[in-house]
């Protein structure tokens, strides 16, 4: 195979994840940068239609990697199939979105192929002819440019939102689609997954809220959430929280924003006492305006805030509620 980039997209129950398009955008950008050809693959059972959907984008070729044992998803099946395919094609770069599913099998796949993965990248750069992948470290406080020190294929996963799904280029004509039937031996798949289900009865759909007031560990105690609730009410918005607040049971799980909870893009996201850990940021960085109040001037949330207040939220929120009420009343 000529120097190629392989993007492996993700599907669940016959639908491509939105982040699949983000990974394709990343692939297109890297292909333009390196001059390598771009190909894509989707793995599953009965995924040829999805492969054709991908083939509508600017990509040289799309593969439908087929095996009945790929449904439902298991890391054993995915690693086995992708090892075979990547082993035969030998692309230079294998790109995937950093989803929970990819996290579940990519380190296994890379290890089985005696390679490594640079995961959760937010971008890339070229240093001479060296490709560097940028990723956040120490929960977003620092950034690192990381290079591969091994042979290709190189595995890279990109963070949600690092590239834009709506920026993926359409193809001039539909790319060729090849169905590859792969065999998975008996006994390879050891896990037996049951049906996927949603747990929290969804009392509130935060993705529809225009204004969100969100609390993090800085709220200190459960009873203080009342303050945030009053602010949310004054603004006509919804209350939300970072994971630790929901883990403690201070707010129900359907109020969680982040990689395990909801991903929102409201008009206004007001973060109270939220440090800005990566797992939370990925769920709200798309907000039109972000206001952050935190007493730690180094909190990573300030990197993405439009308006920032370094201070004690317990000093600021009460007068803020009053001012908001005044403004609402026409003052």
């Amino acid at each position: 195979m000529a120097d190629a980039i392989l993007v492996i997209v993700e599907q669940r129950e016959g639908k491509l994840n939105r982040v699949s398009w983000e990974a394709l955008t990343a692939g297109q950008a890297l292909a333009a940068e390196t001059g390598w050809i771009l190909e894509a693959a989707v793995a599953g059972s009965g995924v040829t239609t999805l492969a054709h959907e991908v083939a509508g984008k600017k990509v040289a070729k799309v593969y439908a990697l087929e095996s009945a044992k790929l449904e439902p998803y298991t890391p054993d099946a995915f690693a086995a199939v992708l090892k075979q395919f990547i082993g035969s094609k030998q692309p230079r770069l294998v790109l995937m979105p950093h989803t929970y599913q990819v996290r579940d099998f990519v380190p296994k796949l890379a290890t089985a192929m005696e390679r490594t993965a640079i995961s959760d990248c937010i971008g890339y750069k070229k240093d001479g002819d060296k490709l560097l992948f940028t990723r956040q470290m120490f929960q977003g406080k620092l950034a690192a440019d990381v290079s591969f020190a091994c042979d290709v294929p190189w595995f890279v996963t990109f963070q949600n939102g690092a590239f834009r799904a709506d920026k993926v280029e359409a193809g001039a004509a539909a790319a060729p689609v090849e169905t590859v039937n792969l065999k998975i031996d008996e006994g390879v798949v050891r896990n037996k997954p049951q049906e996927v289900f949603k747990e929290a009865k969804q009392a509130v759909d935060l993705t529809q809220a225009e204004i969100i007031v969100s609390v993090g560990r800085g709220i200190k105690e459960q009873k203080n959430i009342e303050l945030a609730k009053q602010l949310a009410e004054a603004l006509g918005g919804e209350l939300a929280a970072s994971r630790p607040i929901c883990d403690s049971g201070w707010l129900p799980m359907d109020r969680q924003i982040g990689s395990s909870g909801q991903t929102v893009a409201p008009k206004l996201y007001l973060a109270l006492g939220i440090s800005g850990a990566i797992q939370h940021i990925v769920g709200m960085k798309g907000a039109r305006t972000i206001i952050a109040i935190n007493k730690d001037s180094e909190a990573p949330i300030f990197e993405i805030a439009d308006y920032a207040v370094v201070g004690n939220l317990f000093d600021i929120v009460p007068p803020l509620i009053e001012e908001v009420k005044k403004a609402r009343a026409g003052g």
Partner: protein
Amino acid sequence: MKILVCMKQVPQKDAPLKLNESSTWIREDVSYEVNEPDAFALEEALRQKEKHSGEVVVITAGPARAQQVLREALAKGADRAIHLEDNAFVGLDASNTARAFAAAIQDEKFDLIFTGLQSDDYGYAQTGVVLAELLGWPHATIIMQIEKTDGGIRVKRELEAGYFQFVDMPLPALLTIQSGINKLRYATLIGIKQAKNKPLRKVTLAEVQSAMGANMQKIERLYIPQKTKNTEFLEGPSAEVAKKLVEKLRNEVRVL
């Protein structure tokens, strides 16, 4: 149930970080703590031991200071500890860390291995899954619940956006544990006392080196992130800041 918990010592959450001279790592003169997801993994192992009896062994790879993490684990109820002690362990990639662990435990027979789902310093979320592959074990990640079954275990896997999935698995197996799976216990005074007499085996780099190779990836540069946003900091006494915020909400954000 014989359970191994892989733990890591990381800089404290609010520790101010400074770059070293070559800008390839941080200066080590910070305060450290246990990686939070690993604390949840340990707690889960202790609860499984309380339910099904057995042994909990904790392991870490790091400098001398990392022993603190093991001492705390023993104080909480772990039975013995293994310390791969060397400064060099700090700079290893996930593949090498996993190889070092695999070499250190090759004479043991664990039923389960837990790791936290990721570390708060690197955040790769790989070491556990790499280790499972090296051992030839089935694995599952981001686990919120573990139940014993006739055929092994049934685990609850967390997926995105509030979705979950139960998975039946045979033993032995490796699981990466999600934060919030349980509530962390505090070590008791008796526990802290008893910890002093529990076995702590030290393993040198030399003993596991043959299982390792060169790192397959390299941090070329570590730096303070470039800001892409033009953040406006609002300052002053609280009453004034509140007024400024409302002015922004009205005129810029247009929600009032």
